[in-house]
């Protein structure tokens, strides 16, 4: 699918965790929020989004339940679990370390 997300396979999980950290969202909401918080750098297509959401749910980082959207459509909402928050922290720390390392490397 889109090369950007493929290249940054690990970051997709991090972005989804981050997008869900303030409040529960449905699939489309997650995609929109990721686009918003990355300032349209990443566009997450359904073909990557749904497999990722389901895998993360099986990993115990998210849980899902059906609810109603603002314009009264039924939608499946994903919520971060305790394990998910911990995972977000770990991945954030990891990412920051990597990013720091890379930027040092590039500046050297």
């Amino acid at each position, binding site marked *: *699918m889109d090369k950007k997300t493929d290249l940054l396979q690990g970051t997709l999980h991090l972005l989804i965790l981050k997008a869900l950290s303030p409040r529960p969202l*449905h*699939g*489309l909401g997650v995609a*929109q929020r990721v686009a918003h918080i990355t300032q349209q750098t990443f566009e997450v*297509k*359904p*073909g990557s989004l*749904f*497999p990722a959401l*389901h*895998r993360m749910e*099986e990993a*115990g980082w998210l849980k899902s339940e059906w609810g109603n*959207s603002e*314009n009264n*459509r*039924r*939608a*499946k909402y994903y919520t971060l679990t305790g394990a998910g928050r911990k995972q977000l922290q770990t991945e954030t720390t990891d990412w920051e370390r990597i990013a720091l390392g890379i930027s040092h490397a590039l500046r050297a």
Partner: protein
Amino acid sequence: MRFFSVLAILWRNLSQRRRLERDLTDEVHSYLQLAADAKVKSGMEEAAARREAAVDLGGAEQVKERVREVRAGHFLAERAQDLRYAWRSLRKAPVYSLTVVLVLALGIGSTVLMFALVDCVVLKGPPFPQANRIFTLWQRIPEEPRVSFSPNEFAAWKERTQVFENLAFVAGTGFTLTGGGEPELVVGRIAPPSLFPVLRTQPALGRAFTEPESNAHVVVLSDALWREKFSARADCLGEAVTLNGEPYTVIGVLPPSFNFEGPDAKLFVPGSLSSPFFAAHPDAHFLRVTGRLKPGVTRAQLDEEVNRLAPQVDDTKGGPTRRYFALSLAELTTGELHTPMLVLLSAVAFLLLIACANVANLTLARISARQNEISIRAALGASRPRLVAQLLTESALLAFIGGIAGAAIAFWGLDLLRKFLVQNLPELARAQIDGRALLFAVAVSTAAGMLFGLGPAFSSSRARWQSALQGATRSTSASNRTRQALVFSEIAIAAVLLIGCALMIRSFISLIHVDPGFRPANVVTAEMVMTKERYAEGPAMLRFYRDSLETVRKLPGAEKVGLVTHLPFGGNNWGNGFDVEDNMGKADADYSAQIRPVSPGYFGAMGIPVREERDFDENNRENSPGVAIVNETLAKRFWPNQSPIGKRIRYDKEWLSIIGVAGNIKEARLDADSDMEIYVPYPQVSAAVLQFVGRDLNYVVSSSSPGAIATELRNALHALDPHGVVKVNTMEALIRESIAQPRFRTWLIGIFAGFALTLACLGIYGVIAYLVTQRYKEIGIRLALGATRANIFQLILGRTFKLATLGVAAGLAGAFFLTRFLSSLLYGVTVHDPLSFLLVPLGLTLVALLAGYFPAHRAAAVDPVKSLRYE
């Protein structure tokens, strides 16, 4: 914790598939709606918004498939799905599925059946702990391949042996079991108490006899006798039975698996060399020696001891022709069966290969017929590995069902075989479809499934789906070549099997046409044993001999009557050393011959020609000068250029003058040459020897109404001795029994070859029929362009002919090299028997042409107009 939650998810995914699927569909659907809503909100037309949202989604099915792929347990779910799909699609093609299952079941079933037989005979060995440590000792002389030991020799060996931890002898003898109904003749064994430690086997009930009981009147029963005579009562221990008129106490019952010296050994009584019976015959060779090697002793050490001890124990004159040797118990009991068993196993393996080739062919045809369906599945997103997996699942499912049906066939077939096997081939009676055989069945089915499934699955997945979808190709020429190669190998293998079968049949035919040297037709025999308690001494035995013979001679309908102690094909013989007066003192004067005490008239009743001089008569009495009749082999050996009449020989103390020469006869096997034979008048056998070999009387009566005479014979003998046991038989039946084994294996290989032929024909038919369908259009064009129907017929049949002759030629070449393994099983034909090597190829080609005839006929009947519209 993590582990359990994974398990829980796995369980959820597998058990709540439907709910999950609905959930996923809803979720994707809701995503679409939300996306469309969002687009409408940003000012787009409703319809356009929906269309664009769908395009953005990129195909709901593909998204769902990608979600499924990441689910835990996805692999298992996929296999389960494949299995369900396979089951559905196989049920939609019942003819294909049933044919495949049937063909596989036959192939697998016969292989498993043969495996069970081979396992029992070759792999498992005799039913004793560490049976490979049990060895038997024998002597060999030119006239007899296996001579037993004498009491003196056994005692000497036992004293000197260094390699055996225990050595025992076994002597066979008949017992009259009386008390409780009809007296019965039971064959038993006399053995020292050391036999049981040698075999490391204890009775299932009670105990075996111990050293202090070496001469005691105790008896250990076989399981069969226990069931038959004691209705399997556990409280029979300690009961008394009467054997040969003397009371014995039952002390043990052997386990059912106990099989030592065959099922006819119904009871064991203790015996020691010091008992009067053995002490009276210290030089008679009638002890079969069995021993268990000490731990760590090798076969080479055993052979070394045999060579070292032989000269020390040899109580014969130490002729250079006598050789001592050891045989393992397995070699002794089933050695002769190894080759036939392995040949038959190879035959079924060939059959299974043909079956697999056939099924592979069917599968190829089916896959090419399903090309459209497969292409659609590929276009809908099924990956190539997934398609191969799907096709393999179908093969695996078929192999599984075929395997189960095959195991059932093996069960049933073994049951059937056992019914007529047990008496004739006791070694095979133990065969059973057990865990090992079932494991083998699983292995064979798996291998078969792979063999016929893998090739077609991969070759089909190589095909180009698009072109298949467009209907441009029906089948590639590559798969056509595969198909023909398969049929080619089928025919080749069938040719090998059929030639092997033809050789066996030819061999069997020459076996049954062997002239036994006597005339078995219309000869009835009756066997009766004079027991020790009623006929203790020589005079009593002689009296009964004369009286009974007189009675039998008077029977109405008895045309010629004779009597012999050791009846040819009767399962009993008496080999003994003898001297020739002319050759006394020569270095190699160690001869042995079959000795048969007979009555006057024996030769006439059996139809054995007495060529020189005359038969015995009533004047050859116990006190008249000793006489003998020898057979041609003996006469030629010692007096090649002169008449043996008047020459003198002896096997006991007294010299006997030869008064006649009898024709050679087959003694126990039709395929063995005649031994030297010495016939002596029954009354002239010394009382001591008569005690030992003269108790078994076989009346031989030739009559034109054998059925009536059998009953009369039995009644007359019963009237003379109400306690005697009479066994009536015919010479023809005895000879038939002796060839049970060759008949059995000829039948078996015949059945396998028949299957192979059928399968090969089905294969040819399938390929040619397919070819015709495939070239339907082409045939129509040819016809339209002026080809005659005969041309078309020739074209198709020519194809068949080419395929058949190529296969047959390869088969002939293979058979030429492979039949040498049959050589030890063949009698009267060479391994390259020209008739078999000529007729089988001709016949097979003819049958193959017949299989191709029907499709060719159909091709010739093609309507060109219809065929051109055909698609």
